[in-house]
């Protein structure tokens, strides 16, 4: 995961099985990913998950944007997206449908963003 990894490209290729696109419906680079927890608790983790899957899953117990998962794992966005697509296919996470900013930013969000930026 770091720069001194002997074969980063080969390693990444292995992580995704050479896939550049995630399984299932496409999702945005900033879509919110949330680990599935039901009354019965988290679903059982199927075999075949790599440590990166598990790390992403743990992180997404809190709703987390795809880009943040990538930053946390230190992996490219597209590789991260493939891994998250796997987790979704296994029913372990939900991923938001894309929603255009113009439709989701109401007045409250707008003012929060402006104030937030000014106070930085």
């Amino acid at each position: 995961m770091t720069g001194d990894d002997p074969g980063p490209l080969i390693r990444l290729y292995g992580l995704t099985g050479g896939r550049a696109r995630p399984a299932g419906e496409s999702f945005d680079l900033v879509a919110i990913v949330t680990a599935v927890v039901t009354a019965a608790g988290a679903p059982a983790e199927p075999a075949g998950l790599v440590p990166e899957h598990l790390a992403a899953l743990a992180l997404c117990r809190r709703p987390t944007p795809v880009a943040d998962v990538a930053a946390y794992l230190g992996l490219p966005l597209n590789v991260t997206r493939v891994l998250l697509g796997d987790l979704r296919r296994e029913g372990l996470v939900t991923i938001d449908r894309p929603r255009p900013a113009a439709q989701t930013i109401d007045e409250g969000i707008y003012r929060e963003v402006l104030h937030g930026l000014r106070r930085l």
Partner: protein
Amino acid sequence: MDYAGSEPASAAVADPAMAIKILVAGGFGVGKTTMVGTISEIRPLHTEEVLSERGVGVDDVSGVEAKTTTTVALDFGRITIREGLWLYLFGTPGQDRFWFMWDELAQGALGAVVLADTRRLQDCFPAVDYFEQLGLPFVVAVNCFDGARRHDPVTVRRALGLDGVAPILLCDVRERDSVKEVLTSLVTYSVGGAFPAG
């Protein structure tokens, strides 16, 4: 005010987590990465993305995909407004052959900052054209490199053939306050029109 945030008990329902995308575009070496780094609270992530070229073997899982992929450098940074509300800045690849990456980045974005360098203003034309065609709101931020002639915004507007609506600002992408001003202008321009001033 009647914000969702005023009702903590139902906040989780009324206020789902949301991440807002802003693109930072412009010509080669104009200061995109610097801008993202100046304002991001995380060390900007510089990633080498492996892409499937558009229209070529996108769904091909037969193992020959390596032949149809390419890599592109992308950087992004984050600003947390509060828990559950984030802004993400994406520095977009400049080369024309990566337009398809732009298509995806621009989808659902709040808007874009087009960085311009007055010494080679024409470098930002493709980005301006692209966002105009897409109908994505953008502001033009003229990065005032030391020693560069200081064009005034009126001259830049004329040179870019802008219709007089998109804001044009002078900025220094190394200065936090300057980048903040660019972003607040974009947010106001992009979505503020729908709401009363304040």
